[in-house]
């Protein structure tokens, strides 16, 4: 599950230079001109090569800052605002081709105008000296439009992107009619290659998201039909979600609110959040009971993961399968 995908031809160079297929569908959508612009990260020493590939595909590129990613534990407690770094945690340096380490944050687009807008709104929070430096919130809101996200989803984001208060994915679930979980609205696999969207939809049945994902799906199908078949299969895997950064995909099926499975894979991106893969591997069935996660093997209890209240990044576990 979720292995790196190497295209036969279309956009293959991007995977080769990055060394993995992260955001491949978004790159393809940008090359096709469906997505107005996007941001990506590339090793500084490979920037020149990446730039040449962009040129070959008719994309404009603009580099921004260099990220030196650090593990959470290595960030001194004295760094002001460190708790707000929810995903990528990095020290920032100005871009310079002579640098040896780090990844440069780049923006790419078919249109110079879209590229400029995306670049200006696209600063990503970074540690500079002893502080986290973040862009004004208004830029973050407008950045969603620059990336081509649907307006309803940007509005939903403005309302519920509060890590102290909401579990964003659970709010989207509440906003979805029961059992109407459309696979084109699955955002959980976006960081592991296999997704047609890179935003958090306002609902798992958001019509604008479905239309936009369908456009991307059709365009990719013209170039790499076998990739589309793989993406579709991954998008329909049953999932156990704790919150945005802690989720698992399974080879299995859901019956009577219980997920019976043969294989499990952590897809939460941050390895330090992968607390339960070993427990899940020992089981063959998982379900939710009063917010607790119950793992069974041959019908016998293997583990009960007790629900815990959290003041930051609250977790409300749920099981879902997109169809």
């Amino acid at each position: 599950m979720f292995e790196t995908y190497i295209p036969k031809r279309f956009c293959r160079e991007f995977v080769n230079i990055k060394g993995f297929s992260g955001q491949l569908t978004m790159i393809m959508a940008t090359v096709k001109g469906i997505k107005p612009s996007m941001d990506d990260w590339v090793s500084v020493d490979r920037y020149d090569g990446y730039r040449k590939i962009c040129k070959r595909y008719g994309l404009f590129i603009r580099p921004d800052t260099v990220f030196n990613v650090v593990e959470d534990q290595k960030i001194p407690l004295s760094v002001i605002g460190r708790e707000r770094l929810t995903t990528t945690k990095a020290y920032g340096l100005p871009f310079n081709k002579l640098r040896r380490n780090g990844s440069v944050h780049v923006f790419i687009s078919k249109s110079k105008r879209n590229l400029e807008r995306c670049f200006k709104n696209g600063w990503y929070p970074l540690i500079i000296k002893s502080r986290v430096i973040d862009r004004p919130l208004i830029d973050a809101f407008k950045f969603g439009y620059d990336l081509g996200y649907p307006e309803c989803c940007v509005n939903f984001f403005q309302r519920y992107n509060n890590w102290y208060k909401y579990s964003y994915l659970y709010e989207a679930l509440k906003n979805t009619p029961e059992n109407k979980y459309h696979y084109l609205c699955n955002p959980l696999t976006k960081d592991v290659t296999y997704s047609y969207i890179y935003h958090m939809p306002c609902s798992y049945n958001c019509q604008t998201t479905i239309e936009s994902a369908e456009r991307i799906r059709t365009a990719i199908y013209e170039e790499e039909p076998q990739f589309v078949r793989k993406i579709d299969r991954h998008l329909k895997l049953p999932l156990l979600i704790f919150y945005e950064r802690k989720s698992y995909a399974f080879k299995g099926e859901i019956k009577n609110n219980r997920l019976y499975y043969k294989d499990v894979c952590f897809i939460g991106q941050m390895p330090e959040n992968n607390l339960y893969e070993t427990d899940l591997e020992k089981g063959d069935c998982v379900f939710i009971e009063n917010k607790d996660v119950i793992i069974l093997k041959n019908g016998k209890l293997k583990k009960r993961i007790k629900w815990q209240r959290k003041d930051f990044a609250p977790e409300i576990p749920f099981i879902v399968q997109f169809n």
Partner: protein
Amino acid sequence: MAIFEEFKNITGLELLSRQTNYLSGYTERKDSLFSRLAVLYFSEQKKFKKLQQKIKVWLKKEKTETIFALTGYTYYISEDYKKAKSCFLKAISLNPDNLDNWIDLAFALRHNGEYEISNGILFNYNYIIHYYKYLKLTDRNYLTLKKLVLEVVKRTHNA
């Protein structure tokens, strides 16, 4: 009616006197006004427009750091980055110790296409604040400020 009260009547939000976010302090930002105005802009556009009109009157009455920052925010949100820059420069002139004013200015400059100066400030804010005060610059010395930023960048290789 006092500006603070009027502000509350129009927006439903609290306006507090601007506090200084010193380099030696421990907060990322001292107030959340900029963020709250961003939410207001998307959720209640009428209120935001009314605020924009009213601010012009307030600015004639009161030339404080609080009002300049507030005005800068409304220009920034409505994408008039040149005017936002001018307001943040005035706020800096009144209180160069306030890091929030510098960060606001840096992002206005990024939107204004002055990328080198913007990055120069973001990556060297401590030196810039120190030398701005040392040289006793004001909002009328923008060209000198630019030279200062570029000089700091050259010496620190940080931009």
